[in-house]
């Protein structure tokens, strides 16, 4: 897929354009709560950024390695509960709570290592199901350990005395910081040797092992890297929403939503999960608010979901990139047709190398 990304020939210009685009997007993101001061609007911003960061982090593990985890809500919920319990026990107040978030990340890493060691022994569907099993064990623990989690009544946040007109802003910028860090990290990993090893595992794990990749070590590192930000986001989300209970902290729909965002944008790409989250989270918030008549929104959501997966099986970014490359080549070919006997390089031809691209690069 690197072939598409680096474009054809004009690497320098394209790279500069992409950087400029990312910079412009960042500027828009920074200015957003200053322009839209309405709390109802910046609420969309906070929740969307939480999901941008979550989808990018999830993609670093599941997108790059092909191991689809439906258990990352474990780390999200752990982060929420860790921050909640620590805030209560250590009497932390105000914006000091944000200082607890890195600790929540450490807690998630400590949990992620044993979970990863057990779960990463199995592949494909079995891996998916074992992550679901872990997820339910954690949810049940949240229900059944009320001395720690307050059970179904939930853990409340202490009173927050932020200025009500700009209440959302601290949350917004923390979420933005996490999101930007994760996007940069995702981009760095994708270009690194580590990222190449991850993608080699996705292509063919046994072959990657033969080429000298240590799959367990590499997979586990990616698993832990993607678990840590989930806990940060969980803690932030708890402080923002004001309460966490077992069904909202450990929410199966969280995993499905994050996976769907990555799929919609393009699994295993850097920008795909960002785009997917930017489209889906506001859409979902809007749906649930507007379509209040019963459960029609569930039906609409499911139908939209089906259309997207069946129409854009590889996600928006890869499909779009393919279309653009194809269009450019057609134009280039019509401008100066290739000499006879020399086959025209087509998008499809270049893409066919994609299947074992990572393993070939490693070899």
């Amino acid at each position, binding site marked *: 897929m690197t072939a598409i990304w680096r474009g054809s020939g004009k690497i320098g210009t394209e790279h500069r354009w992409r950087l400029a685009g990312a910079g412009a997007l960042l500027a828009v993101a920074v200015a957003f709560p200053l322009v839209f001061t309405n709390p109802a609007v910046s609420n969309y911003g906070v929740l969307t950024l939480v999901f941008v960061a979550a989808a990018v982090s999830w993609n670093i593990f599941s997108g790059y390695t092909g191991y689809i985890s439906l258990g990352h809500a474990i780390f999200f919920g752990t982060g929420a509960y860790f921050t909640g319990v620590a805030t209560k026990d250590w009497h932390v107040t105000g914006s000091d709570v944000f200082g607890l978030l890195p600790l929540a990340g450490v807690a998630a890493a400590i949990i992620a290592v044993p979970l990863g060691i057990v779960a990463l022994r199995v592949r494909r569907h079995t891996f*998916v199901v074992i992550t679901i099993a872990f997820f339910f064990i954690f949810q049940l623990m949240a229900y059944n350990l009320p001395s720690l989690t307050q059970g179904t009544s939930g853990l409340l946040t202490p009173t927050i005395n932020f200025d009500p007109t700009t209440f959302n802003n601290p949350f917004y910028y923390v979420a933005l910081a996490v999101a930007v860090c994760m996007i940069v990290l995702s981009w760095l990993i994708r270009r690194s040797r580590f990222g190449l090893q991850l993608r080699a595992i996705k292509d063919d794990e046994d072959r990657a092992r033969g080429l000298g990749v240590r799959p367990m070590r590499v997979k586990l590192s990616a698993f832990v890297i993607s678990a840590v930000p989930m806990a940060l986001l969980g803690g932030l989300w708890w402080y923002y929403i004001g309460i966490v209970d077992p069904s909202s902290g450990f929410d199966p729909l969280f995993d499905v939503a994050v996976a769907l965002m990555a799929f919609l944008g393009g699994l295993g790409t850097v920008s795909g999960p960002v785009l997917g989250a930017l489209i889906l989270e506001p859409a979902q918030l809007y749906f649930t608010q507007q379509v209040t008549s019963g459960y029609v929104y569930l039906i609409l959501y499911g139908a939209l979901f089906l259309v997207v997966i069946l129409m854009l099986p590889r996600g928006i970014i890869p499909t779009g990139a393919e279309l653009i490359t194809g269009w450019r080549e057609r134009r280039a070919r019509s401008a100066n047709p290739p000499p006879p006997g020399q086959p025209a390089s087509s998008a499809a031809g270049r893409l066919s190398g994609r299947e074992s691209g990572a393993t070939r690069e490693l070899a």
Partner: protein
Amino acid sequence: MTQYAQAVTDGILGGAVYALMAAGLTLIFGVLDIINIAQGILVVLAAYLSYALSVHLHIDLLVGLLITIPSMFALGLFIEWAFMRRLRGRERTAMSLLVSYAVAVIIEGSLYQAFGVTQVSLKAWYITSSVHIFGFYLADIYLIGFGLAAVSLTAIYFMLYRTKFGRSVRATMQDRTAARLVGINVDRVSGLTFGIGVAVTAAGGMVFGATNVFNADSGYDLISRLLAIVILGGLGSIGGAMAAALIMVTGEEIVNIWAPTWSTAVFYAALVIVLVIRPEGLLGKRAVRAQ
């Protein structure tokens, strides 16, 4: 001691119904190489069908099966034809999960819309009665469920091992490409298998609805249990699914005596422990070279 014996009896009788629902899931996996996340909500849908037939048309639950089994079979054929058949390529595993999840969400929304959130349960004279044998009280509905599961599983067994169609199903399970090469219509086999896998939810749903209160939300609990069962048994192994269902439901009943709030954890804890020791599940085949 009596309570343990009772727990084991209940576990075996109740486990048989889970075995039937899980057999459908594992059969679909074996042939199509996809996990049908919608299986849980399909069970609930079947339960609601039985409910609607008995409440609105006053059709007895058992007689109603004559209508619900073909309906669920047809629905299975449709889902396979409309969605599953269109999945191709490298991300097929993950996409099949998402597609069947989307189907589940649509069914869930429709059920909420049609029946509301209030939990209901099925009613019939044999649901509240029980028989007294050897000092045990056995609820009639559990015996009926066990009977239905036994009959259906035997029928599936004969279908698989004694018919020509069954042979093509098993061939497709072993090697899809080779099956196609020897002239098996793999698409037709896949469609019918999906239909059969979904049809078993009709009987399962009827018994589930009779022994539990349910609403559209019950699908999540069901599918997570069924997934734990099929993985523990070894994906694609019907015998494994049956064994795992009996072991897990019995285990749950026994733990229920000691610590009722933790009994649901038995499913997931057992799964994790078994997979640490045997990654391919109880009766699963070790994948020679998994993609």
